[in-house]
């Protein structure tokens, strides 16, 4: 471990345990511009020699400890899978991008037909890949969040209050995502995005446990759905709102989360075998969510290297996929949009 900052005893133990199990080194780094949830740059995903956990410079005490605990736990899961040569992440290729963009385009057309104020065609075309990438990023992250949080909660009882603060903050930030684009993006994708976070928060509200984390309490737009009978909900205008639909889809996603994650014994001391099981659960959970969201052929499970390569040529993938939908016309439109 390379750290020039004070660390509480349980965190020091967690770091050295992680390093010992994975036979790797972890470096801690402060950065004034770091993401509020911190960042893990690990040797299994990136082509690096050591793992780095980066957190905001103003996290000086327990906030920093929680970020470290969260990323160490995730590192353990990734590392265990890598040791068994089965660490894969969601990636994409030309075919998957083409299929996804066509699907998003079809859904967008359906929505646009009902709208009074239409989206300019250049903007619509640009939105397709942005939306695809958004779901790619979220699906590579969101399913692991409840796994990591449940594990940290069980293994690090001393930082539970800090964890709750972080999770609540994260929940509000995630629910705020896409808000400005609510009227632009197809309803289906707005709802699925919110539903994913709703399900995660509901799962964590039960696991931590913390009622205040329930979206119907924590998220202003959802408060009106608290304490309502199903019958009452079905007979009101709410059934047509995106937030109500997010709740309905979210409740179904919550069932998927519970079905996958409930069998895990979070209190078990981690080792390669148990972390591998957790990794497999994470993969299954991701696949179940993808299926539920009808995005099954949008992504492929590949090595991190594959994703790095795909990222380099994603512009080409986008262009080719758009040409398949719009023909050569799209080249002019894309040029105009620049």
């Amino acid at each position: 471990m390379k750290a020039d900052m004070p660390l509480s005893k349980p965190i020091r133990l967690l770091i050295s345990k992680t390093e010992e199990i994975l036979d790797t080194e972890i470096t801690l780094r402060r950065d004034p511009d770091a993401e509020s949830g911190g960042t893990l740059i690990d040797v299994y995903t990136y082509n690096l020699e050591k793992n780095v956990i980066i957190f905001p410079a103003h996290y000086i005490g327990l906030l920093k400890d929680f970020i470290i605990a969260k990323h160490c736990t995730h590192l353990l899961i990734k590392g265990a899978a890598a040791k068994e040569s089965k660490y894969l992440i969601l990636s994409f290729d030309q075919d998957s991008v083409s299929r996804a963009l066509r699907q998003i385009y079809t859904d967008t057309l359906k929505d646009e037909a009902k709208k009074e104020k239409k989206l300019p065609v250049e903007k619509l075309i640009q939105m397709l890949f942005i939306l695809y990438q958004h779901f790619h990023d979220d699906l590579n992250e969101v399913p692991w969040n409840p796994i990591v949080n449940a594990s940290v909660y069980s293994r690090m009882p001393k930082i539970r209050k800090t964890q709750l603060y972080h999770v609540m903050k994260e929940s509000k930030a995630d629910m705020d995502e896409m808000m400005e684009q609510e009227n632009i993006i197809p309803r289906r994708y707005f709802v699925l995005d919110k539903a994913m976070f709703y399900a995660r928060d509901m799962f964590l509200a039960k696991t931590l446990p913390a009622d205040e984390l329930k979206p119907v309490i924590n998220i202003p737009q959802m408060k009106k759905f608290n304490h309502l009978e199903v019958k009452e909900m079905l007979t009101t205008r709410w059934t047509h709102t995106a937030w109500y639909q997010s709740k309905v889809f979210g409740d179904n996603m919550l069932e998927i989360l519970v079905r996958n994650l409930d069998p895990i014994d979070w209190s078990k001391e981690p080792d390669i075998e148990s972390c591998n099981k957790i990794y497999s659960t994470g993969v299954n959970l991701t696949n179940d969510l993808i299926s539920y969201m009808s995005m099954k052929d949008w992504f492929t499970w590949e090595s991190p290297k594959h994703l790095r390569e795909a990222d380099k040529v994603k512009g080409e993938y986008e262009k080719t996929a758009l040409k398949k939908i719009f023909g050569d016309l799209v080249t002019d439109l894309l040029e105009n949009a620049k």
Partner: protein
Amino acid sequence: MSEKESIELLRKGLTYARRTRFREAIIYYKKGITLNPKNPEGWFLMASALIETGNYTEALAYCEKAIELNPHYSDAWSKKGLALYHLERFEESLFACMRATTLNANDATAWYIKGVCLDELGKTEEAQDAYGKSLELEIIIDIEAEKKKVGR
């Protein structure tokens, strides 16, 4: 004249320190201290930079000098606690942090190090109280930081 010049040099050093260029910062701090050795801030800033570069024993000496010049300098007590923590002198670190939190009850770092030291000394319950206080203050700092980010 030398007082003003000294302050200017310390300011320059601080600019480097904020960009994590501690070696350059140390050069300016040293010059600033030479011009006005009676200013405790110079000794304190030097201690901070030395801690960042891992020179804890030297940093401790600078903290002590800052405290000698101003025994109520809470930041210097806090920094002393940090240096002592790194030197694994937990009891002394705890004492320094207690002094720091008495002088400034809003020092989140001092409360946290206090918690860490109490934990190391096996005083788990007391450690939890110190951690709790540190977390409260950290959350306030975090909310302020988020507000600044939004305002940027």
